[in-house]
Every structure is written in C-alpha cells, then in structure tokens.
C-alpha cells in the first residue's frame, strides 16, 4: 500500500511495488513523482527524513537527508543593523540551504532498495512530460505564493500559466524537470552535487544574492541514524532524531498525556483541548530552549523524554486556568504560518515499511529555479532562528531545526500505524492528536485524520492564541475562552493544520487501511 499527497504519486509507488520493487523502491519512486505532481511541497531541491522498517531484520533505521547551511553561513547573517530581514530568510539566495533529498533518496535506494535509479524515475518523468490536471489545492497554493514566484521564477516560469496562477482544471506540465530527471539517469545523481546541475544551482543562488558555493554541494551527505524511541501504553513509537523536533515532541506530548484521563474527558472536550493546549505551550518553550543541530550542541534528549519531566509538566497544567509563563530561553516567534511539506508512507508485501516526510520549506520554496532545470530550491535556511544567541542560529554546515515527525507506531512489537504530516510547527501537535484519536477515542484512521484539530504555542514565555478548525462546537470554544484562551477560528478543514497520510495495519482483519487527508490532495491505494 502507498499513501501520499497526490494520486499520481500514489500510482507511481504502487506500480513500482507491482513491478517487484520493495517499500524503499516504491517510496523513492513516489518521492520523484511528487516532485512532478506536487512541486510546491517537496522535490530534489529540498530535504527531509525517512524511517525505514526492515521486516526480515525486525529493525528500524532513519535516514536524515535534512538540508545543511553553506560554509559561509553565520549566526548574524539575517540581521541588518540588528533588524531581522525576513526576505533574506525566505525568498532570497541567502534562504537556500544545501539540498539533501536526492542524496538521501539515492542512499536509501542503494542500501535498502532493489531497483536502479532509472526504474524509480520512470513515473516521475512521465508525469512531468504528460502533465497533471491542476487541483483546487494546487491552484490556491499557486495563488498564495504568486508574488514570490513572479519575483524569483518570473512570468515565463512553468510554475505559472501564461504568467498568472494556474486555475483548477488547467494542465500543469514540467518538461524541464523531465529533462533534469533524464540527466540524472544519463550522468548519475551525483551530477546534482558536482556536475552541470550543480553549476546551474549555484549560479541561480548567487544571482539571487546567496553565498552557496560548489564545494558546499559537493560535501553534502545524508546520515543514517538509529530511530528515536518512545512508549505510550502498549505502543512503541519509532521516529526521527533532532535536528527535527517533531519526533521528540510527539513522544514528549504522549508522555504528558499518559498522566491524564483523556478518554474520560472525551474527544475535543473543553478539558481535553485545554490540557493539550497547555502541554503544546510547554513543548514550544522546550523547542526554543533546547533544539538545534545535535552535531553542534548538546540536546538533553534523555531528560526531555524522562517520565519525571513529563510528570512535572503534567502536574503544572491545571484545569480552569492558563500558566502565567512557560520556561523558555531564546527568541523564536516565527514559522507559525507555514503549511508546507509533504508525507508519504509505503508498506510492501514483505512487511517492509517507509515513513517519509520531506520539504522545500515554504510552499514553492524560495521561488528560485536553476535555469532550465524545472525544480525549486528550498528556503530551509528560514528554519534557523535569525537571532545569533539562539541554539538554532545559522552556522557553517549546520542543519536547521525541523518540525517533521515521520513515525511508525508498533503495538506489542508489531507494526500498527505508519504516520506523518506536513504543516510546519503544527506537524507534531496534529500527529499527536491523530494518534490519540486512534488509541484513546477508538476512531478509524480516516476519522482520526479528518477530525477537527487545534493548535497553539508559546513564545517568549507567553501563551499565544488557540487556533481551531471551525467544526469545534461554539459552546466548547466559549468555555475555553472563559478559561482564558484567545480563540482564533480557522476554516472547517484548514491545511494550516497539516495534511496527514497514514496506513493502519489491522491484524484482526488482516488488512491494511490507508488514510489520507482531505485538507490537501491526499490519496492512498493498495493491491
């Protein structure tokens, strides 16, 4: 079974499985296809993380292909006379970090796959050449990012239709991307890091004011790591290590929630939303205080995941009122509006699993496209704090903190749920809600994904608004306001809260159940 954020990408993964590929082959084919069909959320110009479960070895492993800062990055690179320059961080050459996707996919394919690059690229090339009908989601995101695309990619870009955003039903084709994919076959994927494509990348970045050099691309390599592990009741979670905060924070939240009678409180009851919201605010304080690239700083992971720590936070959260402050140290109050990124999941007939989340950061990334190459470069440098004193400030070859959290949940040692989501800083709060919906509230996977969500955070020690989907009933919102939450009502199904994809393994019925989020164009299929 394959779940992903676009039906064409799902088809690509499924056809790879049918041709005898394993879960890793299918995941990489799906990832290339997503670059062609959902170009605004991920691609070879970005980076990410994947959790792989190898059924025969009964072992999980993680491939970290997060982007890295170029050698010339420095902690104050986004300050101009002490003022943060947001444009430099988001839509400028300085916003682009060294992409890791292609190196990560190639590493996974070579070590754990069974197919050659040309095989897993087939569908991506076909989609890019043939085109796809533009969906409502694509069109809306294209319109939202129009200014950036116009400015950096230009009116003649393939990401625009005669210089204007695509309308639903238009056909989006990307022959330049197909050409790039074919070049990867003829010249090897390394061409992206030290060949002609690398030259085009560096020229595009430097033309837009960036500091990346060919040596920065050439030195990039992904990392294989052991997964981060957590326990919730009968369930074990395998997810990713920092520099992504997502996996760590999901485990922290589950640890805190285990102290509360959430099933008795009921789904999206006042007590439930209030307590989780307060937990989110504590977790955001930890994110700002401790999270950075573990190659450069010490992150007290053991302490943050300890039972004692969860117990302390749970006991500080009181029914009926908000905290006066949440312990923090640094200054991050950005990154709240992002909705970007993409997630895919695959299970093959042998029981191998891939849970992969990846991004180019903001939708349409930096908007910068290497000449004639048809792919977007990320603006992942915006995931660094612009403040030099932050544990997450930019520096040479540092990886910025992410919120991604691809995971595999095991029930009594057997895989039970494969899950992940885009959604910026809502990734780990949304995934936690979905897990609780399934485990505690007995929802089906689809119900759990579609259920109304909420989100809040803290910044500089203060509680921020509680964002809710409008399907949460008004009487619950009123009682939350009485407690002191400031309510910000969003759309009924708002992609602000992510676009989760999941696969649930129902061992009683011996079936796989796919779940895909209607907040985006999610889809799933199996055979």
């Amino acid at each position, binding site marked *: 079974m394959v779940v992903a954020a676009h039906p064409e990408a799902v088809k690509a993964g499924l056809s790879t499985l049918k041709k005898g590929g394993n879960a890793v082959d299918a995941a990489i084919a799906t990832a290339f296809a997503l670059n062609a069909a959902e170009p605004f959320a991920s691609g070879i110009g970005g980076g990410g993380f994947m959790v792989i479960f190898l059924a025969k070895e009964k072992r999980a492993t993680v491939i970290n292909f997060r982007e890295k800062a170029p050698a010339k990055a420095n902690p104050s690179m986004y300050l101009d006379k002490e003022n943060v320059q947001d444009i430099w961080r988001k839509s400028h050459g300085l916003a682009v970090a060294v992409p890791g996707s292609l190196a990560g996919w190639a590493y996974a394919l070579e070590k754990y796959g069974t197919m050659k690059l040309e095989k897993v690229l087939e569908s991506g090339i076909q989609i890019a050449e043939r085109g796809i009908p533009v969906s409502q989601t694509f069109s809306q995101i294209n319109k939202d990012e*129009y200014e950036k695309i116009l400015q950096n990619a230009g009116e003649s870009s393939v990401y625009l239709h005669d210089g*204007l955003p695509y309308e639903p039903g238009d056909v989006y084709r990307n022959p330049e991307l197909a050409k790039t994919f074919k070049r990867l076959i003829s010249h090897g994927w390394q061409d992206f890091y030290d060949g002609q494509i690398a030259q085009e990348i560096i020229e595009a970045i430097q033309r837009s004011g960036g500091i990346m050099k060919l040596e920065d691309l050439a030195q990039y390599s992904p990392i294989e790591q052991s997964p981060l592990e957590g326990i919730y009741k009968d369930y074990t979670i395998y997810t990713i290590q920092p520099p992504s905060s997502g996996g760590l924070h999901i485990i922290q939240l589950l640890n805190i929630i285990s102290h509360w009678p959430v099933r008795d409180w009921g789904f999206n009851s006042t007590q439930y939303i209030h307590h989780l919201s307060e937990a989110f605010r504590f977790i955001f304080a930890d994110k700002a205080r401790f999270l950075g690239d573990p190659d450069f700083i010490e992150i007290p992971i053991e302490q943050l995941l300890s039972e004692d720590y969860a117990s302390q936070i749970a006991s500080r959260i009181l029914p009926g009122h908000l905290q006066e402050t949440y312990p923090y140290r640094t200054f991050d109050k950005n990154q709240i509006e992002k909705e970007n990124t993409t997630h895919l999941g695959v299970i093959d007939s042998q029981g191998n699993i891939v849970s992969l989340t990846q991004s180019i950061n903001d939708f349409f990334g930096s908007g910068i496209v290497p000449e004639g190459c048809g792919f977007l470069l990320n603006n992942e440098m915006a995931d660094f704090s612009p403040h030099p004193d932050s544990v997450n400030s930019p520096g040479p070859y540092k990886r910025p903190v992410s919120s991604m959290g691809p995971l595999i949940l095991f029930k009594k040692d057997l895989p039970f749920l494969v899950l992940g989501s885009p959604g910026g800083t809502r990734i780990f709060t949304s995934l936690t809600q979905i897990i609780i919906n399934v485990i505690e509230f007995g929802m089906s996977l689809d119900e759990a994904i579609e259920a109304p969500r909420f989100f809040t955070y803290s910044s500089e020690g203060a509680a921020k608004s509680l964002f809710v989907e409008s399907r949460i009933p008004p009487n619950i919102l009123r009682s939350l306001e009485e407690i002191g939450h400031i309510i910000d009502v969003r759309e009924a199904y708002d992609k602000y809260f992510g676009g989760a994809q999941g696969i649930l393994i129902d061992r009683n019925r011996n079936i796989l159940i796919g779940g895909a989020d209607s907040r985006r164009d999610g889809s799933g299929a199996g055979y």
Partner: protein
Amino acid sequence: MFLMILISALSICFISGNIAESLPRFEQPVLITSAGQSADVQIGGVLAKRAGLLATLSKNATRQELKDNKTLALVIGVSMKGLGAAGLDLDQEKTRVKELLEEAQRKGIRVLCLHLGGESRRGELSDQMIQIFLPYAQMVIVVKSGNKDGLFTKICEDKNIPLLEVNRASEAQKPLKDIFTQN
C-alpha cells in the same frame, strides 16, 4: 472570451459582444490594494499592467496614497499568511480598508472591487470582507467559480452594482481595459 452578467435592481443581462458602452466608466490613475492581504492583489497588478493602465500597487495602502488617484481597485481575498507577513490581524485589516473606502467616498474616487481567487478564495474570513466591502463598489469583477453560491450576485442585486463574471482571472484583462477611459 468572458461571460458577462450585468446586474441592476431591475434586470440581468447576458452580453457577450461589445460591452464597453453598457459598463460603468473609471478613470486613471488607479490605486490597487488588497482587502485581506492575499497574493491575488498581485494578479490584479499584473492584469492592470497588461491592460495598459496607469496603476500603482500598494498592498497595504493608506488614505494618503489615494491623493492623485481617480479609481480605487480593491482586490478582495483573505490570506492569514499574507496578513501575518503584513503584521496585521483581521480587525486591523478591516479598519484599514474601511478607512480607505470612506476616504475614497469623500473624495469622489470610484471603487472597483475584484475577486480573482475563485472558489479557493472563498471561506468564512474572505466572505466577511466581501459582505462588508462590496457595497462600496461601483462595479464588481469576479472569477465565476468564486460566485458559485451567488453571494456576489445577491449583494450586487441588493445594492444595484454591476457585476461582471469571468471564467478565469486572465479574462479580467479585457474588461479592465474597456472600462477605463484611456488617458
């Protein structure tokens, strides 16, 4: 090819030929601004440029910027991301736009409302803006999918405002050229 629905209190006319004479007239220069800070305002800017209009795009325009302009083009559509980037909340944005429209009324500057984002730019927040600000307009141009439920039609009928529907944003270019008096 665009489809025009010209609505008055008494009649609904479908006209596909030369429509210029039956439409209200606007004068240049034109100040283009947003109501809701969505990037649709950029589409308005590009269409105005392609229509050869003397136009200034100011997403966050203030009353002072109206000074030499003879038309205010208001591109309606809420984007929380856009509001965040502009450092505004929804109430501040409503206040800004309301002040701008009141100043335009005082100065006799005509108002053209555009909704270019189609169905995806509808929703609770955009609808609030549409309901509050559409009545200030002397004419409304809307991408047809954004008026599936007839919200624009209803407001325009109630307020006797000519409404022009186009199939896609790019089709708004020609009527934009037609309704402005050439300098």
